[in-house]
């Protein structure tokens, strides 16, 4: 469980600070953090992972403050996937890259190989290739795989789909979804509202460093009064449904909307 208690972070330069954040991410949740550029989403994600330290308040991971945990202890509990995979990758081959994270955390050598093999098998990577020779989408998948090898309880993804095409995006998120179903807690910073609707159970909306809304995904997207303040445009079908509220029952997915239209049409005929 991750808990934010009156967390504020102030930079001297005044950039992307956050103010008085209070929320909890329970074990096994899939939470999306949304909002405009500069709203403090990435700052919140980094606070959650202990990469940034709050200027006041505290962030607790299973009851322990991030400031009291060692780097390796944090890395064991929480995996963090960056927007840019190139900053994470630094080894000459895929195999070494996957082993590196485990070695860092002091996993015994005898255990490293089987665990790397399992991930290689799972992701179907060629172990001898150079990570830098892979495409952007594959590098993002490799960065994710190296996190998964560590088997953290929680995964934080900072705009994991930036620069990926649709298929690569689904490959990464499909994997994340499977992990979530197996019990991993997932926190995802994301700009694509269609993906948020498809994957996240709960949404935190940030605006100007503050938590503006916190609630169940579909409910949040129906809050047409608050969302514009955060420059968030709800997913297409939700918007369509709002516009057709006078003639159709609410629908958020293509299938629901189709059913609503056909139902209404049937009534008329």
């Amino acid at each position, binding site marked *: 469980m991750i808990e934010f208690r009156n967390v504020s972070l102030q930079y001297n330069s005044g950039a992307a600070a956050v103010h008085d954040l209070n929320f909890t991410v329970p074990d096994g949740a899939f939470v999306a953090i949304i909002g405009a550029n500069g709203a403090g989403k990435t700052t919140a994600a*980094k606070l959650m*992972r202990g990469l940034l330290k709050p200027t006041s308040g505290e962030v607790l991971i299973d009851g322990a403050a991030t400031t009291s945990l060692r*780097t390796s202890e944090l*890395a064991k509990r929480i995996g963090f996937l960056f927007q840019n995979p190139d900053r*994470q990758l630094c080894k000459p081959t895929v195999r070494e890259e996957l082993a590196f994270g485990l070695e860092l955390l002091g996993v015994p050598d005898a255990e490293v190989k089987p665990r790397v093999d399992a991930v290689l098998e799972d992701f179907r990577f060629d172990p001898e290739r150079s990570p*830098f020779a892979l495409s952007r989408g594959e590098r993002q998948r490799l960065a994710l795989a190296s996190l998964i090898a560590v088997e953290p309880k929680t995964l934080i993804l900072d705009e994991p789909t930036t620069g990926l095409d649709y298929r690569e995006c689904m490959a990464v998120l499909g994997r994340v979804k499977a992990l979530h179903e197996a019990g991993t807690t997932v926190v995802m910073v994301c700009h694509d509202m269609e993906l948020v609707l498809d994957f996240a159970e709960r949404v935190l909306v940030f605006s100007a460093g503050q938590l503006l809304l916190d609630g169940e995904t579909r409910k949040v997207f129906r809050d047409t009064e608050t969302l514009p303040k955060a420059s968030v445009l709800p997913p297409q079908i939700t918007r369509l449904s709002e516009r057709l509220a006078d003639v159709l029952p609410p629908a958020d997915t293509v299938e629901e909307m189709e059913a609503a239209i056909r139902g209404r049409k049937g009534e008329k005929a």
Partner: protein
Amino acid sequence: MTGFLDYVPGSSVLHRLDPLTKLVLSLGICVAAFVSDDLIFLLVLIALDILLGVLGGVFQKALRLLSGLLKLSVFLFLLQVLFVRSGTVLFELGILKITLDGLFVGARLVLRLTAATLPLQLLLSVTQLSDLSGVLVQRLFVPYKYAFTLTTAIRFIPVFAAEMSGIIEAQTARGVEFDTKNPVKKIGLILPLCVPLLISSVGKIHESAAAAELRGFTLRTRESQSKRYVFVPADYAFLIFTVLLIAAGILF
């Protein structure tokens, strides 16, 4: 966020000086710092640097650099003190030997380094890079290609620094303990990260060159710049001051 080499917009006396004057002044202070062996004179130069910083409204930035230099200074000072073995012995324990000469050489090195670094930062704080390359090309007949290379290199320092801190952050997230107290271990951890930094830098420089060319870089001549630079009385005053400063450096 502005880095320690960034230009700080303003309208102080220094901002309004001709860029060439500022270049000559800052290099003049460096030269004076290198030709003088006198500790008091070096201290006076540092005081002058700080005074100029106040004049240019960038005192805070100068202080930040000064505190950054302090760590390096302590290290260099100790190194000199321990390695210089000539002169009057002040303290001796086994092979450890501290001499008066050692203290003097160490202090001189540290003060010289400080006195010569500050004016360069000051120059960049109160001069736009385009003006710097502008006077190099217009007045000193430096080919634009070289002036551009110089200013681009300066511009890319904060970009690369940001990239490096991003890489360190990403590696920390995987469990690399950069917060180790052991400096040798820390360097050992950072060195392998130069590979991703190098790869991303080469890509950036390629794209940068292409972008400049697509905007007519190769057509640029000495006449291209629309801005012209002219000396005002204050410029002459500062130039005379610089000459006197170097002369004083040679005398002391």
